[in-house]
């Protein structure tokens, strides 16, 4: 398994898009920290970017890579290797490379400018999002054979997680405006890793006070150790579940 991961990583790290992505993040982070007079505010601006761009790049790049590697996957499958090993190696290689790009692009500036609990939370959350969206991309690609269709699906998935889901939440909130929705919202946030990540970081920032009663309810939950453990567990589940399902599907897939 290690061997394949190694070669996948070697391949991806040479990829121009990954290099460009790293440089883009690096420039963006540095310019944000230099433009904002206040580092905490810079972190907030960076958060918005992390929540939109990181999932988009992760899901798209992973999907395109898998589609472009279709023949390579065939070659690997014809070798004396377990299919699960191959698939998880591809996943691990993609996840590691993109996480590394994120860590260099955002992690280094954050460590230089805002090495605080909030900054570290944002880094961890960004790494989680990277891996989660690679896993989701793998699930999408294993389901759809056609490349164009598959990439369309991944873009739709990204749109769903970063926009449509929140629209649905808003709709629900107004539909059930007469009911206390705060506690239910904690549960609902578990269904979208982007929302969960955003809330985790916001609660670490002092803007959480702005969130009023809702913020207090969330703080009450996620502020405690068990709440934090549950949050991390949910994020881990967002990695494990798509990765596991996609590996199972790949195991039975006709190439």
């Amino acid at each position, binding site marked *: 398994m290690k061997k394949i991961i190694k070669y996948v990583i070697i*391949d991806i790290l040479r990829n121009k898009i990954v290099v460009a992505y790293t440089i883009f993040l690096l420039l963006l982070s540095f310019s944000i920290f230099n433009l904002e007079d206040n580092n905490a505010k810079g972190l907030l601006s960076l958060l918005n970017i992390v929540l939109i761009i990181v999932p988009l790049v992760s899901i798209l790049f992973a999907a395109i890579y898998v589609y472009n590697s279709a023949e390579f996957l065939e070659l690997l*499958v014809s*070798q*004396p290797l377990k299919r699960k090993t191959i698939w998880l190696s591809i996943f691990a290689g993609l996840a590691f490379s993109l996480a590394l790009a994120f860590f260099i692009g955002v992690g280094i500036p954050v460590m230089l400018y805002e090495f605080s609990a909030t900054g570290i939370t944002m880094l961890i959350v960004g790494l989680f999002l990277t891996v989660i969206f690679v896993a989701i991309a793998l699930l999408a690609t294993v389901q759809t054979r056609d490349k164009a269709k598959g990439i369309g699906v991944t873009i739709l998935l990204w749109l769903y997680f970063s926009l449509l889901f929140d629209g649905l939440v808003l709709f629900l909130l107004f539909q059930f405006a007469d009911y206390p929705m705060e506690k239910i919202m904690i549960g609902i946030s578990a269904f979208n890793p982007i929302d969960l990540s955003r809330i985790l970081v916001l609660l670490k920032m002092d803007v959480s006070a702005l969130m009023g009663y809702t913020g207090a309810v969330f703080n009450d939950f996620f502020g405690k150790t068990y709440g934090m453990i549950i949050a991390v567990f949910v994020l881990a589940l967002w990695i494990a579940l798509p990765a596991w399902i996609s590996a199972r599907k790949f195991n039975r897939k*006709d190439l």
Partner: protein
Amino acid sequence: MIIANNINKQFGKLKALDNVSVTCNKGECIALIGPNGSGKTTFIKCILGMVVCNSGFITVNGKNILHEWQYRADIGYMPQIGRYPDNMTIGQVLDMMKDIRNKKNTAIDEDLIKKFELDKLLDKRMRTLSGGTRQKVSAALAFLFNPAVLILDEPTAGLDPVAAEILKDKIIAEKANGKLILITSHILSELDDLVTQVIYMQEGKLIFHKSIGDLRADTGQEKLSKAIASVMLKTGNEKNN
């Protein structure tokens, strides 16, 4: 060596393999022949475990291949289109395969690498290579580990005549070494001096599996291409009647 028993495979409505049973033995060089979409590639993929058949079973060296993967250590496979990670060099691809197979005890057969002069291109990135060169890499990889079974899917397509000749010679040499070789090809003329048996498939069905001698005797044709053509004509006539 390879026994396929009543293999069925369906893709949606399309019946890709319809009750195919074949027995292939050591030291044979078998040509898989049939029109486009006759199920040749699907059959090969079934043997390689890339496609899981709906019913029936395949054994390689007496072992059922369902849910197995180690048996593929005995198989060298050359795909129709070989594509490799864009940013890897030829050297890295070879190293990776050696790494994966990790066979220290068996000698590595770098014969083709030398003959195709791939050792001079080790630092070339895969995405910069022509289709022909990639085919050469695929061929070299298939033979690299001295496998007991060689499965070659359209091996000469895209190769220049010189390279095709090198490959043919290699196939003949390996046949002499007692290996089982499965070839699919459209270009029947080049199979003439290679194959010992012919499997003819059409619309997912196995039409016949004969030794080349029998085929020549039955059809009265010396050339494989002519022999096959007369078979096709015959089956066509039977259908019409």
